């Protein structure tokens, strides 16, 4: 049986996938975690955005996937921004105006496609960079939100923030 595995710490697929990740270059991101067969799939970008790596967050009522209790299960590809924002709010985030670094806060950027359907989320790091779980693949650190914009993730359009005393200074080492 064919095993679908990628080598550990191999983000080359991102660079190769110009169709979906046209903005990615070797200089604007780094691989941040190992890509192992099982850990790839047990969490996704939405869970990672709220700081979890043992749940797969999606508004789908189906065994194996998680969505905060009381929030709507939505039809595939017709998920709504409002529902995702409520999910983030359940973890203490609140809507804010933009992605700019604010001392004492960590932020989430919600990416949507041209139909306003959520496709991805990234979380700011204490040093001002961003972290993203890329599909079934690795976590990466990227200096800008634009670095992963495109057909794969959509565009960063909605922003939320919550208190995090560790976020003290923007460094942006990779930008």
């Amino acid at each position, binding site marked *: 049986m064919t095993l679908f595995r990628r080598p550990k710490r191999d983000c080359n697929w991102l660079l190769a996938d110009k169709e979906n*990740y046209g903005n990615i270059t070797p200089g604007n991101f780094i691989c941040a975690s190992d890509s192992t067969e099982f850990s790839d799939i*047990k969490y996704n970008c939405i869970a990672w955005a709220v700081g979890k790596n043992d749940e*797969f967050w999606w508004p789908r009522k189906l*065994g*194996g*996937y*998680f969505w905060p209790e009381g929030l709507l299960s939505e039809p595939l590809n017709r998920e709504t921004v409002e529902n995702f924002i409520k999910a983030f709010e359940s973890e203490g985030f609140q809507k804010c105006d933009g992605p700019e670094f604010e001392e004492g806060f960590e932020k989430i950027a919600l990416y949507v496609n041209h139909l306003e359907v959520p496709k991805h989320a990234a979380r700011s790091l204490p040093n001002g960079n961003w972290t993203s779980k*890329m599909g079934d693949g690795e976590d990466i650190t990227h200096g800008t939100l634009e670095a992963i914009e495109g057909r794969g993730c959509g565009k960063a359009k909605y922003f939320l923030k919550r208190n995090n005393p560790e976020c003290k200074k923007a460094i942006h080492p990779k930008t």
Partner: protein
Amino acid sequence: MMVKQINRLAGNYATQPSRMVSGGIRYAQIVPQAAVNIPKPSIIKIEKEFPFDSEIYAPSTGSYARMKKLDYSSFKLASTYLFLAHNYSQLAYKPTTFTEPVEDVQRQWAGYSASYASQYFPFLRNSNVAKSIAKICPEVATESLAERFEELKEKWQKETSFHSSLGEKFTNDSYISIIGMGVFALPFILNDLVENPAHWFYALEKIVGRDMAEGAKNYAEARLKWLSWGREHDIV
């Protein structure tokens, strides 16, 4: 035996005598025009209007069925024949045009595939699906379907593994085609789940008609529940 079954089940649908193709595997051939000869709704009890146009295409013969707002009965009948044609004649059907939510189509396809297959083929109600299929038609069961499953699976993973969105993963063409294989896909999916973690829960739920991992909050828990169910039914 397989050809006789198809002839009997197809009823008015004309079939040609079996023929030999490369590899010496025996196939039944559904005549293209027969495959699109959908019974007129007037002779079938209309249960509910089918709410959208759809088109099913078998590229190996050029046969296709185009259904424009048929009633459910007609759709079920057409689906059944195309399902049989696919699984027993190796015609690769492919749902190609959906003007309504794909999820609804998936549910219909999976449900009809499973219920009709078990209705017409009692062996599918038995516990070990894979062995039963192999007993009746070893070529189809062990090689062709396995190859088709692997091909679709790899294409699906290649096209969606970079997405976090379950919408993107579950509405992918190849994933839909795997669901369309119905109960025949179960042994392949479940055995794949043993070896490789992948997002099979949606396909399993659509094919089986129930979420056997209901309530599982994470991937590992759901995987164990589905594999336990598969072992209980001797599919894994």
